[in-house]
Every structure is written in C-alpha cells, then in structure tokens.
C-alpha cells in the first residue's frame, strides 16, 4: 500500500456562521490526478486553498507528505502552526490561480525565476536556465522579456503554470484555471495541463468545470455538494454512470 501524499481527516471550515465544509475525508496518492467538481459555493476552492495554506481549517487535520500542515508540535501538544512551520511544509505544494496572479512588475522570465532564487536559494544562472526551459515547454520561449500586461489570458495562465512548476512541487493545485479565460483560449491551457499530467510524477488536484477534460485527465473525480463529498470514484463512474440525482442535474447543466 502506497502512503498517500495528501490526507484530509474530518476537515471542517466555516466563514463566520456559514459552514462551507462539513467533514472532508480524502486520500490522494502520489502522482494521482484528482478532479473536484460541484456547484459554485460547494466549497471546492476552499479545499485547495486550505491545502495551499491560504485558509485555515476550522477543525480537522490536513497531512501533506507525512507532515501536519496546520498544526505543529510544541511541548508535547499540537498547536496552530506558525509562519515558520507553514514555510517548511508548503514547499511541496504549488498552485495556479483562476485570475493568474502574475507579478505585473516583472517580466515573465522574472516571474518564474524569482521564487527559485529567493526561496530555494538556487544560483541565478541555474534558475534562469530552468525557467527558460519551463517557459519553452509551455510554448512561451519567445516571450521571456514581455510583461504580463502584454500577454493574452491563455498565455498568462501558461506563465502561471510554468512559475509554479519551476518550484518542483509534489502536489499541484489548479483553481478553476480556465474560468477567467475567453472560450477560444481555454484549449491551449488545457493542452498544457494534459502534457503535465502525462509526465506523471506529480499529484494534481483540479477544481474545474470542464467535464470532458476531467473525464480525460483525472484518475479520480470528487463531486462536492453542500460541503461534503457526495460522490467519488473514477472519472467514468462519477461522470458517466452515477445515479446520484443532484449530480445528474448538475451534470445536465453542462451537457445541454
């Protein structure tokens, strides 16, 4: 039995009085590709934002590569993690955002190079070389010195992926990465994700509305509804053969 790289143990999350997640249990194996689908407001994004340490869970444990993400041991008991602990554990995780969040004051090469140099203390020439290779891989080798404002949405999102990949995460999170794109630009971004998925060594969690894409790429699909995982299984089990009524009506809206 392979040890899971990510584990959620009865994770709850509330914003004020609103309970967004009501007990999430989840195991993700290394190199596994997981798609999370579900209606908006069901808490999909919150799951991966907690994994990226952008939101703190209200209760429950999140374990990444054997380390508890949000808690640390202090004098024999578990207390809330401090910034230092978080920095130690989140190095294994990378994230691509819906709205790209590229650094507008840097060229796209600098966008990719900055973190390896400053966070991983790589020397400049190595970081630069790796960044260029990664940008070439996502098809932007000719735009190295452009600023994000000069790129299309699809190109920006590909830069954002290169930027995250350069950090060599063990788990990569994709937060509705095509939702902010014009329809004709969605394809190029999905293509890159497909390529990354084929290489295989990284676990990937994708929050997405692209059902066909999920079917194609994901080993496992989770249907999140009203704060719980309502259905899970292989892509074809969940998307094509499920009898869950709410899932059916949710899928129906995408298939019409």
């Amino acid at each position, binding site marked *: 039995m392979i040890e899971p790289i990510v584990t959620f143990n009865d994770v709850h999350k509330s914003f004020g009085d609103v309970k967004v997640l009501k007990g999430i249990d989840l195991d993700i194996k290394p190199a596994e590709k997981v798609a999370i689908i579900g209606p908006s407001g069901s808490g999909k994004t919150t799951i991966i934002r907690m994994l990226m340490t*952008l939101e703190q869970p209200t209760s429950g444990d999140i374990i990444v590569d054997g380390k508890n993400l949000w808690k640390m041991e202090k004098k024999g008991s578990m207390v809330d993690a401090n910034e230092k602990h978080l920095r130690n554990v989140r190095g294994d995780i*990378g994230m691509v955002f819906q709205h790209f*969040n590229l650094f*507008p*004051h840097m060229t796209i090469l600098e966008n990719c190079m900055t*973190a390896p140099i400053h966070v991983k203390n790589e020397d400049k020439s190595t970081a630069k070389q790796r960044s260029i290779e990664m940008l070439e891989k996502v098809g932007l080798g000719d735009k190295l010195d452009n600023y994000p404002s000069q790129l299309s949405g699809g190109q920006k999102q590909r830069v954002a992926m290169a930027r*995250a990949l350069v950090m060599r995460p063990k788990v990569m999170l994709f937060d509705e990465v095509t939702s902010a794109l014009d329809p004709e630009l969605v394809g190029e971004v999905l293509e890159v994700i497909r390529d990354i998925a084929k290489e295989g060594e990284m676990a990937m969690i994708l929050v997405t509305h692209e059902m066909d894409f999920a079917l194609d790429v994901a080993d496992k699909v989770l249907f999140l509804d009203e704060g719980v995982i309502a259905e899970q299984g292989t892509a074809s089990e969940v998307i094509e053969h499920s009898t869950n009524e709410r899932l059916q009506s949710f899928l129906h809206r995408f298939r019409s």
Partner: protein
Amino acid sequence: MLAQGLTITISVLIASAFFGYLFAFIAGLCRLSKNVILRKFTGFYVEIFRGTSLIVQLFWLYYAVPMLFGIELGSNWWVGVIAIALNYGAYMSEIVRGSILAVAKGQTEAATALNMSRFQRMRLVIFPQAVRMMLPEFGNYLIQMLKATSLVSLIGMHDILYYGDILRSSNLSQAPTVYLLVLVFYFILALPLIFLTRKMEDISKKGVASQ
C-alpha cells in the same frame, strides 16, 4: 537679488522632501504593523500633524519647543525642514499605507503559493508595486512642499520670499513687479516637478495589480 534666496528655498525643499518621504515610509509601515502600541502611536502622530496647520506647527516648533524643553532645534533652517517634513510625512504616510493595502490580495496569495517568507512577499512583490502607485502622489506632494518652503521666511530664513519682501519695502511702487517675479521664480522651480509628476503618472500606470 531674488536669486540669492534660491539656495535656501532649494536646500529646504530637498532636505524636507528627503525627511518627509522617510517619515512617510516609517509611519506608513508602522501603521500596518501588528504591534498595537506602535500603530496607535504613529496614528496619533499622523492625526496631530494632519489635523493642525503647517504654519501653526512651524511657529510651535520655533517658539514653543525651545520654551517647553529648553532645547534649540539647531538652526532656523532645521526648524523649517523638520516642520515641513513632519507635516508632509504625516500626509504621505497615508499614501504609503493606502498603496500597500491597495495591492491586490491575489499577489500576496501567489507569493505565498511560491513559499515566500513574509519579508520576501513584502520586498519582492508588494512593495515594488505599491511604490509605483505612490509615485504620482509623491510628485504632487513635492510641489506642495515647494510651496510650503515659502513659510520659512516667516521664521527669518533668507529664502526667495524674504528677499522679495526686502525689495518691496525698499521701493513700494515696485511691489507688483517684485511679487510677480517671486511667483515666477517659484513657478520655474515647480515646472520640472510638474513634468516629473506627469512622468510618474505614466510609470505608475504600468506594472501594478490593484484591486
């Protein structure tokens, strides 16, 4: 003769701009600090200096501080510089604070996702963008500070306005020419600052992700 006052006007402007920006950054960052005492204290400074007049502050530093503490703030030149710098530092600290807060939240999140430390997020991502937002306002305030330097003539500094007053009192009928010339002098000093401000507006339009 007016040109003799240029040295004082320009030196006061440069020094008070330097210290003004310095105070602005220190106070602006302190107001964002997690330390409540630091935040309250700088908030107090900012409100006091924004809530009263520069001319009152200048006189207070000039007349009252020596009486209160029995110390002289060095020369009148320093009194002028400190008054202008404290006053505009308070105003501009609000710009520093506002600009840092205006950098989009997604930028901090992206930097966190790349595992940058708090300090790295500030230094590499937030600050460079915030400074771009500050530039046009900083330019505007530079012109305001130039105008404010004319107040130092009231505490006996020999700036442009001081020499203007001397000329006027020696020949009353020349007053219109004299003051017009004084105004033109200030305007010539302001012109490069006006163009600088426009340039900064152009710069700041690029390279910022604001909410």
